[in-house]
């Protein structure tokens, strides 16, 4: 599914290298987690994969089902099946949440050569999915993320993911700012999407989320590299001892 080889990234505006050769492979149907200290480059990795400007790839490759991601515009990556649940979802005053989602769903369908989803089908689908995430109709009518609480924003990200049905989902600290109940809702939303043909890359600081969304593999990203990979027990080790032991071990 997702295949990253020797990915090196620097900031476009500054002479600062952030990713120094990341190797990562997430096969179809798998859940991989990435943990790592603050500032280690986790969000940068997610942004570079989804095509945000401001970063320069100086080496390596990233492909989704064999297709070069780095060459595509952000919207093309989305249509190819990539989705990023943002660490900080963006507020867009004046653009209704519903309008936004319908535009996005139909734009992706168009790029894939499919017909528009009819207004009634769209409404039916979104109502059902919103209900499962306890997002009320009022929230759907409001401008995108404007006036949403932290938890509402994260649930809205998952709703978008559920509507767009991507095959590769990257979740960047979706658990941050969530209380226990919201975390359960979000995890259930994610788990409902688990499928043989769909993979997840879950970026988190805490073992907590991984109790709900069970990873197959856990990677530690530090100083711009994947320094260690292992099973779910690696997350527990981080939870108990922090990163210092691991960093000392690989230094």
């Amino acid at each position, binding site marked *: 599914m997702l295949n990253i080889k020797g990915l090196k990234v620097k900031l476009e505006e500054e002479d600062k290298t952030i990713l120094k050769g990341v190797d990562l492979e997430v096969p179809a149907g798998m859940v991989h987690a990435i943990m790592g200290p603050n500032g280690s480059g986790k969000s940068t990795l997610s942004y570079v994969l989804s095509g945000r400007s401001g970063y320069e790839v100086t080496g390596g490759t990233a492909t989704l089902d064999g297709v070069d991601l780095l060459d595509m515009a952000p919207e093309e990556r989305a249509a190819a099946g990539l989705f990023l649940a943002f660490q900080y*979802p*963006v507020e867009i005053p*004046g*653009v209704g949440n519903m309008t*936004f989602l319908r*535009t996005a769903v139909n*734009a992706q369908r168009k790029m894939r050569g499919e017909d528009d989803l009819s207004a009634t089908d769209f409404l039916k689908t979104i109502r059902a999915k919103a209900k499962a995430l306890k997002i009320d109709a009022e929230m759907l009518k409001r401008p995108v993320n404007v006036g949403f609480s932290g938890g509402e924003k994260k649930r809205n990200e998952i709703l978008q993911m559920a509507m767009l049905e991507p095959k590769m989902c990257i979740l960047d600290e979706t658990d941050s700012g969530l209380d226990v109940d919201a975390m359960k809702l979000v995890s259930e939303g994610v788990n409902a999407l688990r499928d043989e043909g769909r993979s997840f890359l879950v970026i988190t600081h805490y073992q907590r989320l991984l109790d709900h969304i069970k990873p197959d593999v856990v990677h530690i990203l530090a100083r711009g590299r994947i320094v260690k990979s292992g099973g779910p027990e690696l997350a527990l080790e981080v939870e108990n001892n922090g990163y210092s032991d691991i960093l000392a071990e690989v230094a």
Partner: protein
Amino acid sequence: MAVSALKPNPAMDALSARLSGQVMPKSGAWAKSARADALARLSATGLPARRDEYWLFTRPDTLNQPIPKPAAPFDHSDEDPIFSKVDRVRLIFTDGVFDQAASDDPALAGVEISRLADGGQVDVHWAADLYGVLETRGQKPVARPLATLNTTFASDGVLIRVTGKAAKPVCITYRHADPNSDVLLHHVIRLEPGADLTLVENGAAAARLNTVMEVEVADGAAFHHVRAQGRNHERRAATHIFARLGRESIFKSFTLTVNGALTRNECVIEVNGDDAVAHIAGAALGDGAAGEFHHDDTVFITHDALNCESRQVFKKVLRNGATGVFQGKILVRPGAQKTDGYQKSQALLLDGDSQFLAKPELEIYADDVACSHGSTSGAIDETALFYLRSRGVPEEQAQDLMVIAFLAEALDEIEDEAIGADIHSRLESWLQRRRD
């Protein structure tokens, strides 16, 4: 030397050159005296000059010059005329000349419609009491010579007196056929107590257009105005609205401007009755690549009564060397307590070539008021744009969504849903055309 005693006076030379090209229209007694009075006032002020405080951002030259720059009529046959799906009473002027055959029968219950050009013959005392009167009041503290020029020479216009609730909007459509037309039209509107009218205006009008609209909104009356200044790139227009508001009256005006070499829209409102509401809004889109674009909103609202609300929302989307100007003032007179004044002017600059020049002003002589004003200009929010694109919305479509979102607060001022939807679709078509 005797000759040197006559100091050269370029301002007066410009005025006499301009006047030499104007013809005094035939009119009845009341209009005749109003015109004579206006001519005297114009002779005292002269034409607008670059150094005038209210003409620092907009060059008046092409509005002053005796003969307008020729402008080919714009072919907009690729879309239905705006408002064509709205049930309305149409009054059509072609190059400023009333086109009776193309217009609807102006019969509308509760609404009396006549023409300025006929004003000598019919009994229009109410119009005689307003023609040039609100315009004169609007000359202080800021002179508006182009409006005075209009009162002096306007060839025609509509006189509308509203005594009830009009069942449908009256629509003035300006058609442009002659590349050299120089048009001055003057409308006078009076809404009697409790009356209600929606007036819409659209069309290219002329190579050069000068309109004045004087509106008296009596106690408890409501006036809604929606105007679409559209699409012709070579438009040069100076428009003025002068309104006076009675107790518990409502005045709402929205203007859509797309394209146009030079458009100056002035709006002067006297809020004179307690509990009155005045909303003025505008959305302007200009692309310098398609032709010169300079758009100027100049607004002056005077509060002179208790517990009134005024709201100004002006939004401009500018690119490729387009220029937007906003000059807006709220004056709160002594005693106009509980005034709620709001003013917002914003420009979205789609590139680094465009500019927005703003002069927001507040002058307040009452202590118990809430007035706010804010003026900003900036580029599209890149983070928001990326967010939309990351969900699969193509860049241009995402940008258009952001543009419409930016304009939303101004568009929200349009009350009639069908008219609002029409304006909305024109904006989308305008954006769409820039993409192809």
